[in-house]
């Protein structure tokens, strides 16, 4: 099922009665989620990603704009008529019901011709449980389960009624690091197996990048960029997206374009043909540095962290917007840790320049 959002806007009335300030949570948001894909809605907290998810679910009504499931306009449809499954951040498992009862609960709401016999219901619940590998835990209560198990129950409950769209709100945020890795693979597997169009919300770019077919980056209610994770990473449309994606984060410098060359400080580090002379902000991915004895960019060396496969070199530079610059290079390259400075050459496709004011990408 393809999901289309058209000019979606959500405005919350101000909580503070005196100021009368409205809060625009989602602003003129449009995009299309292809059928059967896993989409990560990504952004820092307060960017409107959860609101967007809730509008897709029907729990919140958009202030304006339309939502389509396939060709159906579901904007006016309330949540139960949309055929979605929703997994909450803290799972919202009914604490007084066993796992089985929790999973059965949505099925018991079906009425009319959808009504299932007892056996059918049990069958469905069992296969859903099997899918998320909790079929051993059916008679436990939620508080007897680990976080990861609860998460699976929540997913099973969302899946059991065979939703057209599966929505997950920060599905991994309540899990510890190890479980997180495991569970995100799990989500990916389940999505693949069922082929249900799935949207999940996260503030963790790594998580989003690792499992999504597509990611949607949002900031302050405004859509920034949509695309396959690698595309977005490789081609951020603005400074925000560039900064938001990637660990370690991108290194940002104040720079300038002069005569088709990009300068950081006094050093001309890159050819930028066709870019008008201007002050710019430069973003360089950590992996965009190459150690060269005669490299164009000289940085003061402060630390070298050997991480096995890679080496992380921490340096400083007066033009850097961050306190330190972190580059990641192959462990094979030898670094003289006693030196006071290192010199880098830059890989052009890992360097992005942005308009100083608008922070929009300047392509070269």
């Amino acid at each position, binding site marked *: *099922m393809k999901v289309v959002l058209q000019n979606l806007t959500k405005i919350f009335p101000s909580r503070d009665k005196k100021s009368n300030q409205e809060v625009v949570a989602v602003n003129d948001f449009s995009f299309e989620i292809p059928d059967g894909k896993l989409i990560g809605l990504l952004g820092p907290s307060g960017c409107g990603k959860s609101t967007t998810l809730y509008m897709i679910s029907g729990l919140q009504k958009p202030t304006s704009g339309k939502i389509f499931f396939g*060709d*159906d*306009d*579901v904007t*006016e*449809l*309330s949540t139960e*008529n*949309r*055929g979605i499954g929703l997994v909450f951040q803290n799972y919202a498992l009914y604490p007084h019901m066993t796992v089985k009862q929790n999973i059965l609960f949505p099925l018991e709401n079906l009425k*009319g*011709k*959808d009504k299932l016999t007892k056996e059918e219901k049990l069958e*469905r619940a069992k*296969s*859903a449980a*099997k*899918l998320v590998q909790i079929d051993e835990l059916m008679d436990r209560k939620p508080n007897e389960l680990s976080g990861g198990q609860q998460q699976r129950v929540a997913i099973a409950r969302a*899946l059991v009624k*065979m939703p*057209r769209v599966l929505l997950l709100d920060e599905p991994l945020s309540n899990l510890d690091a190890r479980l997180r890795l495991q569970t995100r693979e799990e989500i990916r597997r389940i999505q*693949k*197996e*069922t*082929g*249900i169009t799935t949207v999940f919300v996260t503030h963790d770019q790594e998580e989003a990048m690792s499992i999504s077919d597509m990611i949607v980056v949002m900031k302050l209610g405004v859509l920034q960029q949509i695309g396959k994770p690698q595309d977005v990473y490789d081609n951020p449309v603005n400074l925000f997206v560039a900064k938001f994606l990637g660990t370690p984060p991108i290194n940002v410098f104040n720079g300038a374009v002069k005569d088709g060359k990009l300068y950081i400080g006094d050093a001309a580090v890159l050819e930028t043909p066709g870019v008008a002379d201007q002050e710019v902000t430069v973003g360089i991915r950590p992996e965009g540095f190459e150690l060269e004895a005669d490299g164009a960019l000289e940085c003061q060396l402060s630390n070298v962290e050997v991480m096995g496969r890679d080496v992380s070199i921490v340096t400083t530079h007066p033009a850097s917007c961050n306190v330190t610059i972190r580059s990641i290079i192959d462990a094979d390259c030898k670094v003289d840790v006693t030196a006071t400075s290192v010199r880098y050459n830059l890989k052009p496709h890992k360097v992005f320049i942005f308009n100083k004011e608008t922070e929009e990408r300047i392509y070269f």
Partner: protein
Amino acid sequence: MAFKKKEATADLTDSSAVMKARNLQQTAARQRIAHICGKTMTYTFLLLMALIVIFPFYFMIISSLKTTEEYRRSVPTLFPMEFKFANYLNVFTDKDFQFWTLFRNTVFVGVVSTLLSLVITVFSAFAFARLEFKGKNALFAALLGTMMIPGELFTITNYQTVNDFGWMKSYTVLIVPFLVSVFYIYLLKQNFMQIPNELYLAAKVDGTSDLKYLWKVMIPLALPSLISITILKMMGAWNSYMWPRLVANDDAHKLITNGLRGAAFVDELGNTDYPRQMAAVTVVSLPLFLVFIFLRKYIMKGVSRSGIKG
């Protein structure tokens, strides 16, 4: 299995969840109607119940404005035919009903007993919630058990006791015997229990004394509960009747409800002048009412936080 890719899509296509365009609008309209109906029913129910609940209050106020003759009519009027505001004036000027004295006594007894009661309740609840000692659970269960006893029977013995103490006709006798309420201790204990024990342990590590911890951490966190208790206790002082009448019914210590039920507003034949009495009742209820309106938020919080779990 149903969840394999292909089958799932097949399932979905013939499920009724898939709707044709015209169906969509119908569903949307239906759900709007259902929503409006639901809201209408909720409001109708609530407003109807509110009407029933508020009626005695309304009746009290209109009665307080009626003339005695009108009040005595066998078919009660629902709106005064003529307003007699003099009834209210009378509350403050009536010689039999020393409003200000009664008011002062009640406020004094209410405030002092509330403060003392709070101190006792806080300490007891703290001991039950945070300290370990032998027989704690048994003691607490025994305390809860006392709530089941019809308290009226205590009167005879307690009267004897306070008389032996020589407390008759004093503020002491109005304040001391009922300072401890098992219910308040229970309420506050529940609230204290919800404050993570780690905070207490952390305070211990920092060398904070129990008292300081209570004052700086527990009390601020349990404030809503304490406010609820304050209000309940104040209402108690406002409405207490049997005991004060028995032990301190002299003019110097009389409390407001006794004033209301006493000789005031009764004519020579023992018939009550209801409108005047109702005016007095209204005036007397007003402070409580205002307190309630202003502190409603805290009362609500206090109760919800006590999270009455076993």
